[in-house]
C-alpha cells in the first residue's frame, strides 16, 4: 500500500514561484527518483509531500486520500535526511523507536520492530551508543532504521548519500536497493547525482526550474530524451550538441552521446585534433576540437593509445542521433 498522486502543485515564497504546477502519479511499490540541478525545486516538492511545507495550491493524495491538511506524522510517511538528523542526546535504540513510542505502540512490539530493523541494517552492536559515537555510514543506517520501523506507506529520501564518501556511497546505494526489493515499499528519493538516479530508480522524474521536464524509466530517458535539458542532464560525460547547420541537418540542434561516436586515424566524417585524453581503464574519454562541428567528447570502450595533439577522424554512429527543434524539443524522425 502506498500510492501517491500530485495534482498541479504550486509553491511560492513571497513572489518567487519555486514549483510551477507539478502533476505526478506514483504507483504502489515504485522507486521514484526526483533528479535535477540545485534550486530546481526537487527538495521543496519532497517536503510538500511530507507535509513539512504547505503547497500554495494543488493537491497531494496518498492512497487516494487528500493529505493537504494532515500533519506529517499522520501521513504514513517516513523521511531520511541528508544531514541524518539523528537526535544527538538519544541512543541509537531510542532514536529508532521514538516515533513508535510517540504513536503509543506497546513496548514489546517496539522492541521487536527495533530488533528486526537493526538486524536488517546490521546495527545490533551499536544500539546502546549515541550518534556522536558512530561513523557517517552507521548514522545514515540509523536514520534509515528510524524510517523502516514506522512501516510507512511512503519512504522519502532527501539526498541521503550526499554526506558520505565515495566508497560508502556505493555500499549504501546497494543497501537501499536491497531494502526496496525486500520491503516492496514505495520510495521517493531526491538526488542531484544522476548515477544514483540511473542505478536505483524504476522511474526518474527530471525537474528543472520548478517544472517536470520528463518522466520515464532510466533507459527511456537515456535513449529517448524528450528535450535538450534531459538529453544534457542524463548521461555522463554529457551528450555532444552540434549546431544543425554545421551538421548538415534540418534540425536546430543535433545531439550525439559520446559513446555513439567512432574514432579512426585513417578517415571519417569530421577531422579533429585531440585536446585531452582521460584513461579510465574500462573507458577512454577523448576530448576533440573539430573545425567542422566544434568541440566533441568521445567515449571509447577499453584502452586506446590516443594522445593530445593527435589528428583523428570522428564519425557518428547511425541511429545514435537525437534531433531537437528550435524550442529544444525532440523531433521524432521515426527512427
Amino acid at each position, binding site marked *: 500500500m502506498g500510492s501517491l498522486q500530485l495534482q498541479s502543485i504550486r509553491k511560492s515564497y513571497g513572489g518567487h514561484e519555486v514549483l510551477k504546477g507539478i502533476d505526478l502519479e506514483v504507483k504502489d511499490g515504485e522507486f521514484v527518483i526526483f533528479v535535477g540541478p540545485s534550486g530546481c525545486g526537487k527538495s521543496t516538492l519532497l*517536503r510538500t509531500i*511530507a507535509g*513539512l511545507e504547505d503547497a500554495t495550491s494543488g493537491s497531494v493524495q496518498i492512497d487516494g486520500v487528500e493529505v493537504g491538511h494532515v*500533519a*506529517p*506524522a*499522520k501521513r504514513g*510517511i*517516513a*523521511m531520511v*535526511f*541528508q*544531514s*541524518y*538528523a*539523528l*537526535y*544527538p*542526546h538519544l541512543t541509537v535504540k531510542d532514536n529508532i523507536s*521514538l*516515533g513508535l513510542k*510517540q*504513536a503509543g505502540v506497546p513496548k514489546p512490539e517496539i522492541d521487536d520492530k527495533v530488533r528486526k530493523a537493526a538486524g536488517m541494517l546490521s546495527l545490533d552492536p551499536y544500539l546502546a551508543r*549515541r*550518534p*556522536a*559515537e558512530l561513523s*557517517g555510514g552507521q548514522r545514515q543506517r540509523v536514520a534509515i532504521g*528510524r524510517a523502516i520501523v514506522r512501516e510507512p506507506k511512503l519512504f522519502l529520501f*532527501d539526498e541521503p548519500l550526499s*554526506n558520505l564518501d565515495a566508497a560508502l556511497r556505493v555500499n549504501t546505494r546497494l543497501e537501499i536497493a536491497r531494502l526496496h526489493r525486500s520491503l516492496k515499499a514505495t520510495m521517493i528519493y531526491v538526488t542531484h547525482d544522476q548515477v544514483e538516479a540511473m542505478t536505483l530508480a524504476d522511474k526518474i522524474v527530471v525537474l528543472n526550474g520548478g517544472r517536470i521536464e520528463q518522466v520515464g524509466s532510466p533507459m527511456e530517458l537515456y535513449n529517448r530524451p524528450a528535450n535538450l535539458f534531459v538529453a544534457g542532464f542524463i548521461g555522463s560525460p554529457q551528450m555532444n550538441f552540434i549546431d544543425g547547420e554545421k551538421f548538415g541537418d534540418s534540425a536546430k540542434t543535433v545531439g550525439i552521446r559520446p559513446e555513439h561516436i567512432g574514432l579512426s586515424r585513417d578517415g571519417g566524417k569530421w577531422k579533429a585534433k585531440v585536446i585531452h585524453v582521460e584513461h579510465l581503464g574500462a573507458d577512454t574519454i577523448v576530448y576533440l576540437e573539430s573545425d567542422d562541428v566544434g568541440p566533441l567528447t568521445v567515449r571509447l570502450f577499453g584502452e586506446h593509445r590516443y594522445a593530445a595533439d593527435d589528428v583523428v577522424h570522428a564519425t557518428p554512429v547511425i541511429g545514435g542521433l537525437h534531433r531537437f527543434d528550435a524550442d529544444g524539443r525532440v523531433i521524432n524522425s521515426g527512427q
Partner: protein
Amino acid sequence: MSKARTSFARTGAVHVALIAYTLVALFPVFLTIANSFKSRNAIFREPLAIPTPETFSLIGYETVLKQGDFIGYFQNSVVVTVVSIALVLLFGAMAAFALSEYRFRGNTLMGLYLALGIMIPIRLGTVAILQGMVATNLVNTLTALILVYTAQGLPLAVFILSEFMRTVSDDLKNAGRIDGLSEYAIFFRLVLPLIRPAMATVAVFTMIPIWNDLWFPLILAPAETTKTVTLGSQIFIGQFVTNWNAVLSALSLAIFPVLVLYVIFSRQLIRGITAGAVK
C-alpha cells in the same frame, strides 16, 4: 625542537597572564574573607594580614547571625534568584524559539522590540513599577521582586537564545515532526538540550545582577520578612559608624550561594559543548 620551545613559551605567557588576572580578580574576595575572621582592631591595623591566633575573631559572624533574621534573608535571596532565573530561561527560550522557528508577519520587528530592554535600564521605570506594585498589593512580597527581575533578564535571554536556536538544524526539528512530536515536545526534548550551553551562559548573566541588587529590594520589598541578603547587610553600614566585622562576614556568607550556582551552570556549559550534534 624549536617549535616545541616556542609553543612552551607561548603557553607559559598565556598562563602568566591568566594567573595574574586570577590574582587580581580573587584579591578582593580574599581580603573580604580574611578580614571577616579578624577582630575590629586587627582589620584597621593590618588590613592585608591573614588572621593569626591573636587577631582571630568570630565576632562578625556572631553579630550577623544574632542580629536580624539572616537565614531568612538568605532564603529570600535564593528564592528570588532561582525562581527568576527559571522564569527567564523558560520564557526567554520559548520566545526565542518562536522568533527563530516560525515565519510570521512582524517577526523581525518583534525580535527588535524584545531586545530593546537590553539598551533601556529597567530602573528608569522604578516609579511606575512601584505604583503598579502598590496597586496590585504586591509591595513587600517576593513576587514583586521576581516579576521585576524576570522582566529585567528577558531581553538578553531572548537575544542570545534566539541566535543559538537558529543554529539548531531544521532537519532535526523536521525529523521530530515526522516522528509525531508536538511543537512543545520539539522545543523541550530536541531544542533545549542542544542549546544548554547558551542557557547556562544566560543563567550566569542573569543571576549575578539579581543576587547583588540593592535597588529593587530597598524600594519594593524592604519589610523584615522579605529582605534579601544585600539589603540585610545594609543595617551594619551606618551614616557614622560601620560595623566592618559584620559587613565583611555577611559578604563572605553571601558569596557561597553564588559560587554554588555558578559551579552548577559551568558544569552544564562543559557538558553542552561535548554533546554530539548533527553530522
